[in-house]
């Protein structure tokens, strides 16, 4: 059980050691970071196989009195396990890719230390059992990501990061206000305990206001419309592995996961909230796709596509039915993998061509055959073509919409899927197909470390499709969705630990 502390100690200790001794081990920094994330993935798998959930660990050994928790608690249940697995696995892949792609930077130890701190922050957000731990680790990840976005110190990256910081800082203030109000209402910061107290109170208007604050604050972090304004600037300007990590994992962990925890476990997912989630998700879905189609910058197109896929996840989770929750979580996993791979491909393309404008590229199919194949796999997965993983997750979402009695959203999601495919075909047409045009900085394929990470993700894109088999998803996704379905009673169960 004390392995859970590894999620905190390992990344932090390694980051600090990298800063201290990095001067001598700079060549191995990438391998060390990948090893740390790999270790954490192994710990996640080990915990998944061995332990009965939910588990609540009191930091500092403060035992609860009369069932009222004192102190900070780390809570692990099915949902936390799923997210931890996704984060650390994508962390491994991003670290491996960085070995090959960050070669023109000096002082790489700072980059890897920041990557580890981002991982630490995300692990902390997931394992947090009370609001303030959540806030502290949210800020750790946010600050690390601000610096990572601006890592190449170009004018555009600094400006994008500045916009991200101001919007993210305002969102953090809204979240802090929500936390303060919850403390005032319930007298406790522990999420499970707050749920218990809120059960006994009437649905006061203050609780609705708190819900709005959290939705706005975490909505900015999750880049759902209308709070998405920072994402189309920040994700293109970041270095390729950072974009992959941000788009694939960070927006989900810093935005969707706390919203799930708060709305399903503390406030209770009833009343007006399911409708709000569905509408926000639906709007993001369509608007993100339409805006993506209009872009000529590759990474900006992928960023808008991220907004729309997050909309899909909100739509599915907002339905609230068991199948809807499974579909939302399934899509979360497949999109993390697919979007990371898409950004990896974009990274190779941008590295070879030197700019991101699709009008100046063309004919890369002959120059980058390997990248073209992985691009097609990831594009078809995220757009939702069989037999890739994304097809199954989108199918689940559409079926869940129909099953929940809302066929309109099912058709809406299907139309959005076609628009996503159109956007990816646009990239295919302008970047890969056609005559070779535009200048090239280099004319070689991706280096080995990039290829390794891309192949791994491409294989995952295919293999994750098998999660659609009920026998498999009941092992992996259902523990997570069940935690959400139980809603507030899951919190009561945590209190009993």
């Amino acid at each position, binding site marked *: 059980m004390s392995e859970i502390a590894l999620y905190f100690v390992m990344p932090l200790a390694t980051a600090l050691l990298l800063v201290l001794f990095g001067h001598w081990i700079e060549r191995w920094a990438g391998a060390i970071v990948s090893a740390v994330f790999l270790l954490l993935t192994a710990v996640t798998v080990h915990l998944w196989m061995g332990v009965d959930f939910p588990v609540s660990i009191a930091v500092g050994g403060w035992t609860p009195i009369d069932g009222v928790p004192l102190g900070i608690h780390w809570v692990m249940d099915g949902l936390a396990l799923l997210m931890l697995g996704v984060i650390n696995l994508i962390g491994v892949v991003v670290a491996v890719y960085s070995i090959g792609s960050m070669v023109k930077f000096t002082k790489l130890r700072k980059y890897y230390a920041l990557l580890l701190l981002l991982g630490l922050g995300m692990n902390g957000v997931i394992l947090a059992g009370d609001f303030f731990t959540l*806030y502290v680790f949210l*800020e750790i990840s946010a600050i690390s990501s601000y*610096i990572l976005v601006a890592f190449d110190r170009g004018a555009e990256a600094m400006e994008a990061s500045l916009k991200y910081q101001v919007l993210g800082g305002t969102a953090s203030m809204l979240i802090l206000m929500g936390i303060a109000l919850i403390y005032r209402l319930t007298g406790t910061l522990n999420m499970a305990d707050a749920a218990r107290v809120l059960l006994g109170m009437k649905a006061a208007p203050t609780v609705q206001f708190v819900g709005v604050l959290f939705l706005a604050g975490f909505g900015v972090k999750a880049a759902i419309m209308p709070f998405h304004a920072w994402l189309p600037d920040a994700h293109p300007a970041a270095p390729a592995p950072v974009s992959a990590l941000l788009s694939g994992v960070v927006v989900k962990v810093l935005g969707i996961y706390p919203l799930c925890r708060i709305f399903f476990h503390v406030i209770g997912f009833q009343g007006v909230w399911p409708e709000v989630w569905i509408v926000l998700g639906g709007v993001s879905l369509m608007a993100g796709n339409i805006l993506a189609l209009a872009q000529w910058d590759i990474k900006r197109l992928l960023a808008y596509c991220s907004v729309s896929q997050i909309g899909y996840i909100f739509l599915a989770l907002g339905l609230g039915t068991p199948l809807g929750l499974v579909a939302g979580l399934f899509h979360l996993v497949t999109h993390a993998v697919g979007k990371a791979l898409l950004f990896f491909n974009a990274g190779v393309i941008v590295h070879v061509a030197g700019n991101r404008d699709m009008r100046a590229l063309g004919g890369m199919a002959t120059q980058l055959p390997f990248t073209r194949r992985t691009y097609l796999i990831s594009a078809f997965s995220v757009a939702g073509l069989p037999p890739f993983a994304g097809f199954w997750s989108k199918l689940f979402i559409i079926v869940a919409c129909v099953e929940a009695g809302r066929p309109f959203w099912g058709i809406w999601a299907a139309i959005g899927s076609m628009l996503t495919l159109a956007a990816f075909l646009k990239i295919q047409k302008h970047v890969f197909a056609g005559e070779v045009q535009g200048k090239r900085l280099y004319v070689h394929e991706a280096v080995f470390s990039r290829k390794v990470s891309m192949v791994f993700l491409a294989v995952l894109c295919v293999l994750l499709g098998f999660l659609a088999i009920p026998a498999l998803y009941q092992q992996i996704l259902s523990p997570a969705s069940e935690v959400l379905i139980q809603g507030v009673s899951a919190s009561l169960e945590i209190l009993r630990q």
Partner: protein
Amino acid sequence: MILYLLTFLLFGIGLYGVWTKRHLIRVIMGLIIMETAMNLFLVLIGYRHAGVAPILTGSHNETATMVDPIPQALVLTAIVIGLATTALLLAFSVRIYAKYKTLDLDKIRNLRG
């Protein structure tokens, strides 16, 4: 009650600053004002009527009403987080000034295109 409303007013002032100001440093100051307002709000929540500082000193005022210590711990942490955020924003301002030679947000946005 009036104190709570005043902290919300302070938060509103900060939010207005972030939204409308054109000069980067004024936007950052708006963010700082928001953070200060939130810290004040947190401390206010902990106040108990006629409470003393929540420190056990082994002397005879153990039975006095103490203010709630949890918001004070939260505010300490929030102040440090605010410090880190502000420091990062200011470091970015210095770099952006070095690149764009201006801190006017309209010009910084337009240069990017």
